[in-house]
């Protein structure tokens, strides 16, 4: 394997250096520009007066706190409940697991507002599970728990998919060797599978968190919009559009900066661990 790759003529590291790097850069540029221009547009439109007004706004503080709290709850749920499931998905490819593998992707194709309706029909006070909960005095809809559930529903599948791909890429012979040497299933997971698929877990967690942070449609339908209770940053931005475009823009930029910082920190921590 190694020999055949290394001896191929014409693709020595030196030969493809400068020219192909230029070509690659040119091919990549349109998408980079496309993906970054809207952010640049938001920042260019930023009005310092509006930013001051937005920063002084009490509903913004509530929205930021709520967004941080609920997205970290979602991330925790993804890691705690999602890790076993992604392990199961990575190691079972037959029978019912093939179907489960397909079905856990469904929330990612549902329009978020429809996902919110589904949550309402399942967990709302007239929903088939929510009805029972409601009779015990537990009401989920329109609470911060509903926000976490909406985020979890749309975002955790990203964690599952990414983590499962990482776990499936671990050489099964390594896992087999470890268990032949007497390691328990748990030891195999913690000392072989997880360290080898760490990057995928980290990537899945970042993706899941980012998706949860931007969640809008499922949240507004299932959790409603109430400052301090269910109004996350994306909801506050959307309502801001009805109220004051400049403040909405400022809020959007704040959301962007906050997300960038957290993703950056997440990346650097994870890179160190990897």
């Amino acid at each position: 394997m190694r020999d055949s790759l290394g001896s191929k003529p014409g693709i020595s590291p030196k030969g493809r250096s400068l020219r192909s790097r230029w070509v690659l850069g040119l091919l990549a540029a349109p998408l980079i520009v496309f993906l970054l221009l809207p952010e640049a547009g938001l920042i260019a439109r930023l009005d310092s007066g509006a930013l001051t007004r937005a920063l002084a706004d009490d509903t913004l503080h509530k929205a930021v706190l709520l967004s941080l709290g609920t997205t970290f709850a979602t991330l925790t749920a993804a890691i705690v409940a999602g890790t076993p499931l992604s392990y199961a998905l990575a190691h079972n490819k037959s029978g019912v697991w093939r179907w489960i593998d397909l079905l856990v992707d469904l929330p990612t194709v549902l329009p978020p507002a429809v996902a919110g309706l589904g949550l309402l029909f399942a967990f709302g006070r007239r929903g088939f599970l929510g009805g029972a909960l409601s009779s015990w005095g537990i009401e989920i809809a329109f609470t911060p728990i509903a926000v976490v559930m909406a985020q979890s529903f749309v975002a955790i599948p990203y964690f599952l998919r990414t983590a499962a791909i990482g776990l499936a890429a671990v050489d099964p012979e390594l896992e087999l060797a470890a268990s032949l040497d007497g390691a328990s299933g748990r030891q195999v997971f913690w000392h072989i599978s997880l360290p080898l698929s760490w990057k995928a877990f980290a990537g899945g967690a970042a993706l899941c968190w980012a998706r949860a942070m931007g969640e809008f449609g499922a949240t507004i339908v299932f959790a409603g919009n109430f400052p301090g209770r269910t109004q996350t940053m994306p909801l506050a931005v959307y309502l801001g559009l009805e109220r004051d475009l400049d403040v909405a823009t400022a809020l959007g930029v704040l959301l962007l900066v906050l997300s960038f910082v957290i993703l950056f920190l997440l990346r650097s921590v994870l890179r160190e661990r990897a």
Partner: protein
Amino acid sequence: MFAATSLTAPFEAGEAAFREVFPSLDLEFQFAGSQQLRAHLEEGAQADVFALADEVQMRAAVDSELVQSDRVRRLASNQLVVVLAEGNPAGIQTIVDLARPGLKLALADPSVPIGNYTAEFLNAYAEGNGLGAEFAQGVWSNAVSLEQNVGGVGTKVVSGEVDAGVVYRTDAISGVAAGLAYLDAPPEYSPPIVYVIARLRQAFNPSGADAFVQWILGEEGQAVLVEYGFLPPTDA
């Protein structure tokens, strides 16, 4: 054509009738909240006709030179109603009941038109009936969600997740909450809700835009609006 969300049903229904008269004109609608539509237009969105649920927004559109002031016409009027969840689980009988603690209401945020009308109505109702400021406060504190448009209010009442919500009469007659029982907001306390329509300055097809405006203000167009629960335009 940019139109307020509450005009969705009559405009879509009116399209067929309109095209019988003007077969060459194809109508394309974009429905959203009045302020959002105005923001879109100010950001360069293209449209021919602008129909709003709010005269204030139209004045703002005139100020930002989207619309010529002498082109603005009154299209129809609307009223507020309190729509009740199926079976009226909370046993709401009168407007006063809305302030009863423990109720779950869906109201619109006061920054959007329907929410602003709701606030005006509750205040006027309290004043007219000697209920004091606690009444409106009590009603607002029963809100589990401050929705961003009337569709959000209606959906939450229809799903039965809340006991009641304040929507337009049109929503209860033909719209999202059709079929549910409702209480009329007494007209003497209801703020005037005036729909206005105008051709936009930047219209691609000015004569087509005028044709639609004339048709919807005419007998046939008005009949469609009434069918969907609108009331004839009031005089200024």
